[in-house]
């Protein structure tokens, strides 16, 4: 497990005026790792991703990718928001191609990429549909295909399945694991669903209430695919739940 460090968060502090949200957070994510972050509502999970991507200025500390300050023009980062962010005026296919068109990728390549990822998330037959004709889970798939089509080196996901029912969530989680395995991309996945974190993550960061620090870091060595009914799974889930009870 000697993978190089992909993302390094070093003594990160984030304040909104007087409100201290992130209080001295340090951790790193290895290349190709699947990291889950769990934390109570309002503790600053979204704030962390927004700080990482430069949507927010940070108050102190640093965040680096491959040892360099984050630069979205250079580092291929894909960020999947808490809310669905498909472009309503584009069809499924055009949405999946959106980022490639932005980057003036050759039409042929964009089409091929879109084809591949539409296939992987099972949207090929809906290619000509507009977002308002799709269900919530399909919208989220479009967003995921759009992210993977850029072949990101770092994928950030902010409670992407929070609004889906359990069954759909399982399906999308498995899809995500497949994509992750195939692409070898590094993933930071935020959730408040403990089971989801234990099911997906190779490592779980548990955050505290505001002002937010890292409460505990848990390695999750359960083999994949994980069985959510297995005793080891339940044990680990309970362990995380215990930590969270003190929120």
């Amino acid at each position, binding site marked *: 497990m000697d993978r190089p460090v992909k993302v390094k968060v070093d003594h990160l502090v984030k304040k909104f005026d007087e409100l201290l949200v992130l209080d001295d957070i340090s951790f790193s994510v290895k290349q190709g790792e699947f990291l889950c972050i769990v934390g109570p509502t309002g503790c600053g999970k979204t704030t962390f991703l927004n700080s990482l*991507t430069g*949507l927010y200025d940070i108050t102190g500390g640093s965040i680096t990718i491959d040892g360099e300050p984050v630069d*979205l*023009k250079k580092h*291929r*980062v*894909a*960020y999947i*928001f808490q*809310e669905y*962010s498909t*472009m*309503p*005026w*584009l069809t499924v296919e055009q949405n999946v191609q*959106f*980022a490639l*068109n*932005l*980057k003036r990728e050759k039409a042929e390549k964009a089409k091929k990429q879109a084809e591949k990822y539409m296939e992987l998330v099972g949207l090929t037959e809906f290619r000509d549909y*507009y*977002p*308002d004709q799709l269900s919530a889970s399909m919208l989220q798939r479009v967003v995921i295909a*759009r992210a993977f089509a*850029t072949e990101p080196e770092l994928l950030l996901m902010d409670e992407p399945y929070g609004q889906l029912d359990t069954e759909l969530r399982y399906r999308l989680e498995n899809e995500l694991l497949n994509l992750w395995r195939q692409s070898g991309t590094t993933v930071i996945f935020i959730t408040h669903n403990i089971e989801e974190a234990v099911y997906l993550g190779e490592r779980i960061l548990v955050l505290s209430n505001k002002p937010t620090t890292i409460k505990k870091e848990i390695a999750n060595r359960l083999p994949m695919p994980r069985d959510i009914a297995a005793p080891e799974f339940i044990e680990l889930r309970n362990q995380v739940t215990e930590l969270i009870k003190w929120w």
Partner: protein
Amino acid sequence: MQRIGKTVWKRLKANRQTLLWIVISFATLLIAWQVASMLSQGRVQIPAPLEVFEAFFRSMTVPIGKNTILEHAGISLWRVLLGFVVASVIGMAIGILMGVSPKAHAVINPLFEFVRPIPPIAWIPLSILWFGLGSSNKIFIIFLASFTYVTINSYEGARNVDPKLIGAARMLGASRRRVFTHVIFPSSVPYIFAGLQIALSVSWAAEVAAEIIYSQNGVGWIITMGMNNGNITQIMVGMIAIGVIGYLLSTLMRVVEGRLCRWNRQET
């Protein structure tokens, strides 16, 4: 034209009931008109429907004044087109600028609010003095009439872009310029189009008004000439032409909108 015909037809066919009511309503109008024209004999002059329609179709080949009715319509439409296109381009630019830049909005909007309540026809005298009696003064009026609607709607469109979508585009590596061309503009299109739609019908009304006040040709002129010569049939012919063209223009806009804003169906 063929496409408009097709859409109208499709819509009608889709709803036979509606078609029936349309036939009934027009039939009622024609009967009432016929009765009124018969009863009015010797008092006010109301020409019979058939007489008016006959004159209408005759005027397609026999000129009224120097031009056939189709030529008059062409002249009027050409002016509308010029004024409308210029107003649309400038209106979109200014509207979107106000939408994305609060500073631009702060500067431009007060002027705008001041000029807006002045109806376009109130500009006609000034416009004649500034631009002469030809086509330019009418184009100016049309410009004024459509400009406000396009601007306001473009502004609303640009202002109402979902910030989440802008964020998503930025995260996917879009520069400010690409955010504009790939997110702000396309997402404003339905608003802009609603503005263009109103603008075009208002333009048409303004053109007719300007022609009635002073003109040497065009469909509005047909009416004024009819009035000056006491030719009520001619007045009615002109009015029918105005109505038909107005209807065609708005249908045309609806068809174009339907194609461009397919994704936004539920709002139209």
